[in-house]
């Protein structure tokens, strides 16, 4: 049995047994299987994933505590906790609940949304560079949002809708470009860079048409910022995450089968076309909502899933660790951007752009070693 599967990964000659569905190769499946009752819901948990997840949670809590306690006004952990529970003094209550908490929550939700979007799209495109920021969806969302900001002077909700429409339209355009000729792997990424450049030109055009004040606002928004994000933004992205993450997690198992190739996935009983379409919409929607709230933040979607995958050594798309990693990365980046250049407020996009660019450079180097080694 195992010999058959080693030689025929397409699955044409063999049908899978229950133990092996999650992995592509002949790896021994380890870990703990959690089941409810008669197995209506079952989950395989690997020790390494649990440990990594726990460490990331601890780090996230640490970052959150530092974010909430430090700044222009230092607060003790006790003061913060009391304020969070509603018993804080007036000043602490204002600082924690009006200024710091919504910003922190926005950062974590946006980070998680971007990371899951990146994980899903990287998996669908089969390329570690196929994240929404690289292949143009983020710029598409930005075009939609900028149109609403500059032309329609819309509200937060309208900006979100504009970003969503822009992102989906870009995804549709990329899909059409991918039709017909095989457009996979690196080629897809390169075409995405072209589409991105085109959309960037649209953005620049919109900015030159705006008044000076609008332009400054739009430019600050375009680099991705968490400054002055309040409960309205936190709620918007929070609801989006609550609505979109569960179906993404639910579909993740099928996604790992789609990753093995269409034929294998179909043989395993996965409706490939529908799974793909659903996941594409979810991935784009997550990126679009994140973009609507903070502006285009680069590289979280690219880096977080990869880092999570490397840490957990998961074989498929590990969405939950990716989400945690995204939340951690963005919250930490925002903390850095706020504190390092203290009196002046740098948008978080500058931090993720710089760090993420360096990461991309490292990715390029390691990938090239791997492909030719």
């Amino acid at each position: 049995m195992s010999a058959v599967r080693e030689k025929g990964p397409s699955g044409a000659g063999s049908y899978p047994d229950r133990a092996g569905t999650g992995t592509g190769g002949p790896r021994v499946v380890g870990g703990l299987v959690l089941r409810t009752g008669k197995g209506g819901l079952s989950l395989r948990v690997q020790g390494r994933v649990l440990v990594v997840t726990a460490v990331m949670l601890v780090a996230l809590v640490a970052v959150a505590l530092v974010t909430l306690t430090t700044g222009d006004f230092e607060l003790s952990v006790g003061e913060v906790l009391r304020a969070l529970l509603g018993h804080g003094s007036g000043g602490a209550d204002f600082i924690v609940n009006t200024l710091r908490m919504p910003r922190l929550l926005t950062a974590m939700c946006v980070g998680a949304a971007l990371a899951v979007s990146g994980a899903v799209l990287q998996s669908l495109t089969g390329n570690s560079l196929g994240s929404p920021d690289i292949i143009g969806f983020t710029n598409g969302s930005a075009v939609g949002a900028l149109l609403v900001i500059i032309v329609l002077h819309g509200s937060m909700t309208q900006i979100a809708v504009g970003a969503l429409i822009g992102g989906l339209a870009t995804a549709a355009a990329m899909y059409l470009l991918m039709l017909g000729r095989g457009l996979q792997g690196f080629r897809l990424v390169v075409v995405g860079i072209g589409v991105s450049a085109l959309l960037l030109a649209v953005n620049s055009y919109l900015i030159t048409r705006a008044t000076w004040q609008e332009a400054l606002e739009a430019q600050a928004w375009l680099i991705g910022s968490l400054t002055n994000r309040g409960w309205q933004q936190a709620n918007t992205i929070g609801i989006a995450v609550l609505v979109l993450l569960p179906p993404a997690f639910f579909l993740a198992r099928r996604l790992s089968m789609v990753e093995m190739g269409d034929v294998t996935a179909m043989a395993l009983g996965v409706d490939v076309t529908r799974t793909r379409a659903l996941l594409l919409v979810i991935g784009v929607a997550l990126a679009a909502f994140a973009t609507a709230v903070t502006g285009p933040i680069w590289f979280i979607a690219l880096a977080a899933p990869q880092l999570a995958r490397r840490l957990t050594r998961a074989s498929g798309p590990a969405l939950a660790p990716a989400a945690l990693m995204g939340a951690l990365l963005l919250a930490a980046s925002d903390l850095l951007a706020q504190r390092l250049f203290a009196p002046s407020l740098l948008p978080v996009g500058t931090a993720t752009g710089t760090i993420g660019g360096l990461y991309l450079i490292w990715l390029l180097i390691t990938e090239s070693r791997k492909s030719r080694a």
Partner: protein
Amino acid sequence: MSVETRTAPEDRAVEPVVPRPGRTANTLRGLGLLASLGALVLVGLLSVWVGTRGIPFTATWSVLWHPDGSETSIIIHDYRIPRTLLGLLVGMALGLSGALMQALTRNPLADPGILGISLGASAGVVVAVAFLGVGSVLGYVWFAFLGAAVAAVAVYLLGSSGRTLATPDRLVVAGAAMTAVLYAFNSAVLLLNPRAFDEYRFWTVGSLSGRYYDVIHVILPFIAVGLLIALGLAPSLNALAMGDQLGRALGLNVGRTRVLGAVAVMLLCGAATAAAGPIGFVGLAVPHVARFVVGPDQRWVLTYSMLLAPVLLIGADVLGRVLGAPGEVQVGIITAFLGAPLFIALCRRRKLVML
């Protein structure tokens, strides 16, 4: 990835790079050159004639030759003619640097904008403006060169890191990475320095407006030197097109050609960017058109690129004035709209053969 890395030189060996064209072929190419020159003159005249203020063509024509100090005359002689001349210089520089880069890296997707070199130049300018208080174009130019050089070297090293050749796809992604880092850097610096920002938002999309004779004087020598090096290299580039090894066998000093070529790219690209901001896709599109028209001989490709690129750039500038009336659309935006679809079409080709 279906990029042909190893078969490309063999393809070239089968199909000689420098075929011996008959007299007729060269005559046709010469005629084409004259036609391009005609188009350039035509577009130049158009650029002098079309503008925010509608001036009848007859008036434009007569004032062009007999400046009389009137308002019309001042508009034409102090604004539109220098702007057109600047377009000519910048266009020539961009077209030549694009053609050079494509020949040197044997990469059909090479373009100073796409590979992040223009943004390197602008990062140099941003540093000069924000930290060193440099306020003149002559000052910009040196920093633009420095930025362009650093970015070019970094992107090339990245694209060819590991044991791989610098394939077109990889170089583009390396360029995108470089662009992202520099973009974040520029934004951060400019956001902390709002007064520089208002100037920059027009500069960054590439514009020919508001930069006149003094700018031309500053960049002219750099572009002239770059142009001479580029044209002098043309025969060596033909040998290089057959691959490093064959080129060496033909007696080519590959290392020297590369270094000289890189210097020319830097001079041309840095000067163009310092004068007009980063303008993408001109250097990408024009050499392709040139190769389509005249075939692979680099001597012709470089000459045609040098003439056709300003046609495209000045044309895009005029188009921006027409479309954006009563204001104008920056030329960099127009070239992106024209060039990006071509870029996408090039990528979609089944086989992205290295040049």
